[in-house]
């Protein structure tokens, strides 16, 4: 149960990191977002058994991690939290796909294990990039970025308001749960008959708050549109950032770098 409460602290921690100042922070958020999206697409485009080919893509999160001042422990912690589900799904692959595809003499590797590793590498790549993106950009700035990329305004406003009120409600829910467990003598799970009125009352309070916020908005002249602050300026550095990483991603996808490197080394050794 505490894990979910800790999740709220995690959101807070992202906010704190985003207020920092590192080389990665200073790039235009549009450039960063576009690279992350493109990387996600590229990572997904590999064949099922691609393992070594995906490795060069990992340069992205590694370099970004160094450029930002985000602690490695933070990123690893978040990765660990997201790991179980993917692991659970990926582990079926070695179970169902047992035909060996690679032989090292004594050791033979089945296709299933290759695809398992491939899945884990993709996971590592795409999730670490999201973590770094949010940690170096901040949620509010990300929302403003979405607006610049022509996402419908009502959705961006929804994201901003939602984010703002999550913290408030998380506190309230915590209090409700604590109050319950104090009188339920330690039970943290709420009994089913109570759920309707407990959640119902919370919901009514929430909706009342929603109406009060609406009133507050009306009192300050709200006419249906919220303006979102978006002051970032694209400069040459951002173009290089975007171009550079895009080229790297395309290169890594089209040229089997690790294979070439390996062959080159083997030739050198023999």
């Amino acid at each position, binding site marked *: 149960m505490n894990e979910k409460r800790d999740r709220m602290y995690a959101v807070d921690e992202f*906010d704190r990191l985003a207020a920092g100042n590192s080389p990665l922070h200073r790039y235009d958020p549009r450039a960063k977002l576009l690279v992350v999206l493109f990387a996600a697409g590229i990572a997904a485009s590999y064949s099922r058994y691609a393992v070594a080919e995906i490795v060069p893509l990992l340069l992205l999160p590694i370099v970004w991690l160094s450029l930002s001042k985000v602690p490695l422990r933070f990123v690893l912690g978040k990765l660990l939290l997201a790991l179980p589900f993917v692991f659970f799904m990926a582990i079926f692959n070695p179970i169902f796909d047992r035909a060996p595809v690679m032989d090292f003499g004594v050791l033979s590797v089945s296709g299933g294990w290759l695809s398992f590793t491939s899945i884990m590498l993709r996971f590592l790549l795409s999730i670490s990039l999201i973590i770094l993106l949010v940690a170096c950009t901040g949620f*509010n700035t990300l*929302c403003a970025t979405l607006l610049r990329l022509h996402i419908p305004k009502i959705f961006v406003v929804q994201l*901003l*308001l939602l*984010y*703002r*009120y999550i*913290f*408030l409600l998380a506190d309230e829910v915590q209090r409700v749960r604590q109050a319950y467990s104090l009188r339920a003598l330690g039970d943290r799970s709420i009994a089913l008959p109570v759920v309707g009125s407990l959640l119902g009352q919370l919901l009514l309070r929430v909706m009342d*708050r929603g109406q*009060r*916020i609406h*009133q*507050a*908005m*009306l*009192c*300050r*002249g*709200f*006419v249906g549109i*919220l*303006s979102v*602050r978006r002051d970032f300026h694209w400069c040459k550095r951002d173009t290089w950032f975007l171009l550079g990483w895009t080229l790297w991603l395309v290169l890594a996808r089209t040229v089997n770098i690790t294979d070439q490197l390996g062959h080159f080394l083997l030739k050198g050794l023999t």
Partner: protein
Amino acid sequence: MSHHIVAVQSLDYCYPDGRHALQCVNFTLHHGEAAAIIGANGAGKSTLLRHLIGTLAPTSGSVRIGDDPVLPSTLKQVRRTVGMVFQDADDQLFMPTVYEDVAFGPINQGLPPAEVEKRVKNALFTVGCEHLRDRPPYRLSGGEKRAVAIATVLAMSPNILVMDEPTANLDARARRHCIRLLQGFTHTRIIATHDLDLVLDVCTRVIVLHEGQIVADGSTMEIFRDKKLLDRYHLEQPLRMQGCPVCSPSSEPCQQQSASDKHSHARRP
């Protein structure tokens, strides 16, 4: 300065289920006046305030803000003149940063960016919160939230300020800061509150509400000296008057005080 006048005439309001929330409420406030609305819980204070900003419409009677009656068609003008500070500051701070919250009103008023910036700066300066400009609202303390909420209203340059429990849940320092702010304003002020010591510091007039009706309306000291009146309507004297042998004759004399002393409980520096 007619636009600073608040005139409530024979105001009646019934809830959807038929209960009377307000009955025959009559009062007029003049330019620069600071009035407190006090009463027990459920007396109808918040309901009355909501009529002043047009959130609720009277069942009968009228409310006038300056020259404009408060009607659905005049709400826009009314809300330019009257600024309301809500009981729960979190209801008023919904933008990502303090700056954007304070700028929300001026932007909606259609002001140019330079003017918006000026208004925000002044408002934040007035409440002493310029350093909180880029802070998200959930990172503010209770007192800071209250101050910023006041700033969001000040930025719209209203003539009349309506406040619902401005010092609720504030620690001593934040409360003192809020009271000092309110003392410094020259707007017409209407404050619904349980904090009677605040009333002593800020307001010259007190309106007592009981079960939806006005049962007393007079100067601050006049009302607060009338212990019987206060008792009848489930109220007490302000705390700092309660120990005073002059204002509360039944209590023990705590210091050498006499009626001839320069005796005043109002206006702390």
